[in-house]
């Protein structure tokens, strides 16, 4: 929980800085995959491991996973029909039979229509989503952050002793 909160605060800070755009975009993208796939699947655990090992913005990933899980719930009928059409394709039947008979692979529950449908949709849309998220983050910094920093309220906050103390603290102890 501490790790999660820390990562969320970090996300807010990063969003408002001018660095780490790719990390945030990748976090949001992987969060999208997590949100789309049902919980406790093997591929979900793999994505989670990637978020932990690679320097990907975990806060962004968890927030995105939480947000996209709701969307995925609404999209379940679409995933079901996509998954069903893939799983019943005659040309793929042999591959699925081999996968079904392999060790570990069946734990991914690939033979479930919703898992297959959501998996395919998330994997196919990942590259596009990454660039879209990069664009959105950059746009956010220009449109929202710059405008906010020019407001009188923020200038007043920056002038306070507390803010100066915070900046000094962040220089020494922040990441």
């Amino acid at each position: 929980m501490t790790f999660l909160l820390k990562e969320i605060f970090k996300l807010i800070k990063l969003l408002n800085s001018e660095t780490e755009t790719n990390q945030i975009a990748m976090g949001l993208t992987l969060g999208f995959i997590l949100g789309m796939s049902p919980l406790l699947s093997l591929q979900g655990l793999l994505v989670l491991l990637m978020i932990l090992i690679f320097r990907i913005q975990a806060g962004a990933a968890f927030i995105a996973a939480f947000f996209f899980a709701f969307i995925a719930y609404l999209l379940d009928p679409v995933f079901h029909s996509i998954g069903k059409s893939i799983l019943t394709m005659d040309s793929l039947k042999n591959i699925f039979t081999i996968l079904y008979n392999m060790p570990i692979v069946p734990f991914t529950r690939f033979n479930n229509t919703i898992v297959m449908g959501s998996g395919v949709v998330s994997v196919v849309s990942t590259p596009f989503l990454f660039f879209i998220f990069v664009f959105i983050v950059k746009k956010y910094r220009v449109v929202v952050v710059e405008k906010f920093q020019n407001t009188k309220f923020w200038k007043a906050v920056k002038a306070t002793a507390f803010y100066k103390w915070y900046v000094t603290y962040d220089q020494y102890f922040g990441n």
Partner: protein
Amino acid sequence: MTNTSETSPETSKKKKVKKPKGPIRTGLVSIIVIFCTVVFCYCYFFLDNHIRYVLSKVLTNVNNAEVDIADVSLSFKEGSIYIRGIQFTNFDEPEYNSIQIGEIGYNVSWDALLRAKIVIEDAKLLDLAFNQKRKKPGKIYPKLKEEKEKQEESKVVKELKGDVKAAVTKKGEENVLGDVVTLLQGGGGDIKDNLKNIKFDLKSEQKINELKSLVEKKQEQWKSDVKEIKELDELKKVYAKAKGIKISKDPKTALKQLKEFKSLKSEADGYIKQYKSKISALKDDYKGLKNEMNSLDDLYKEDLKALKEHFKLPSLNLSEMAQGIFGSYVKKQIAPYMKYWYTVKEYIPEKKPSKEEKLTPHQRAQGVTYHYPKKKGYPFFWLKEMDISSRSQTEKGSADVSYQLGGFVKDLSSNNTLVGRPLSFKIAGDMPAKKVNGLLVEGIVEKNEQEKFQAKVNGKVNSYQIEELKLSNSSKLKLALTDTQAQTKFSGVLGMKEGDLKVNTSFSSVDWKIQAEKSSVDKILNTVFGRIPQFTLNSNIYGFYLVPKIKIDSDFDNKFGASIKQYVGEEVKKAEAKLRNMVDEKVANQKKELFSKLGKTEQEYLKPLLSSENNLQSFSKNFSDIGKKLEKEQKNKVKSKAKSAVKKELNKLKDKFGF
């Protein structure tokens, strides 16, 4: 000094610039690596020892006495665990081990584990031994032993023990041999000469008394009925009245007279009906009594049988001698093994619906899961092979082997259809200390046509020695079979509730040990049994496990029967005749009296009734004749009157017209 203090601002800026971070969270990864290393080291250096320690403590607690484990080796790579040198201290004799196992363990298939299945490639249970001496006495913990023992003795075992014990006591102490001895001692010498001296209610005698009192009671009623039927007073009066009617010439009066006759006839019909019903009731009474008299024969036979039992007069059925003598022995030998199967089969899973490997969707809460044909499937549990061996010396360090057994269990699985082979097992070996050679038990467990599990077993013991087998232990006769060589073969099918096992046992070099109450009997039996040095027993044990039925077929019957018949056959006949005479003496007179009474009834009452019946018939006929006659007379008179009237009128007309 000046150089060092005069650092330029550019250099200090460079120092402050952080090194760019790589794509991997090195901090987190290093924590994971350290954790994994620590776990690996623990498993590599300490886990085996800790498992050994915990297992030893747990088993000691279960055994209530020290349990030592020499070594535990666990391998994640091989998926195996092997435990060596397990010694269970005997609670009652701490210097001995109750059970000792050289090596026990198994290795599981990783391929199956990664499919969430447990497949044991190879299991071992080696050097199993019982009651072996320990190097030093083990510690014992007596606290909860008594309580545990009470709980362990299951209801089933109790029932079975009781059943066998009761059967053995009953059959072992008193069997058909007791009857033979009774006969040899004088053929039912206990039968008292006078039946009046003993308190014994004969059913036939009771029945005769009942019938006699019934006949007496009925006779009074019959007497009055017969008198009434014989005289027919009422009917005769009505008949006289009817006969006295003479048809008048006046038509109106004639019609009245006819009406009067009809009412008399209906009155007579009523009487006739009443008499007839009385006659048929009397006849029925007589018939019923006669039937009751006939049933006296059956009661007579019952009385004889009851008396035979009362006086313990043996009914010598030599065709079932072996059944009586060896039944308890076979039950004692087989029942404990039946009990094991009864316990084991509780753990055999019942039939599960078979799944067709088709591409069929299975509806779920979310989405649909498709199943593809399984090319490499495992059942949930599969023990491919388990080697078992057990060997014991008579004394530690001695070369003499107490017993040596070995075998295997193959394909113990939760789904043998998927495995393609049934569960099979085999145990073979020798027990030299008990003089048992060539022991073999093998079999398979599979599903039958009704999809229920059943075990097909067969086996043999090439030779074993029976030191002493008590066949009769009554006060009259003590019979035992000593120092006998035996050979057994068995085969059968054991179902879920019932079994059918055939056991063929051959006994040779039989040494009979006979001790009878009377020396004369002792002599006869020694001669008879001396002619039976060998015999075979073909037993069939079938039915419900806890109360199995036993059918025995043996050449012992013929061998024993041929010798003993000459001694006991005549005695049985004599005793039976004696009993028959006694019953006859008591019952015959009364029976004769009853029959004579019934005969008298027939003479006095039934025969006269026949003439009365005829009278009634003639009365009935007479009435109808009178009726016909009166009707005819009335018709004729009316006719003649009409004719004369017509003639008179015709004459008047002739006179008027002058013809």
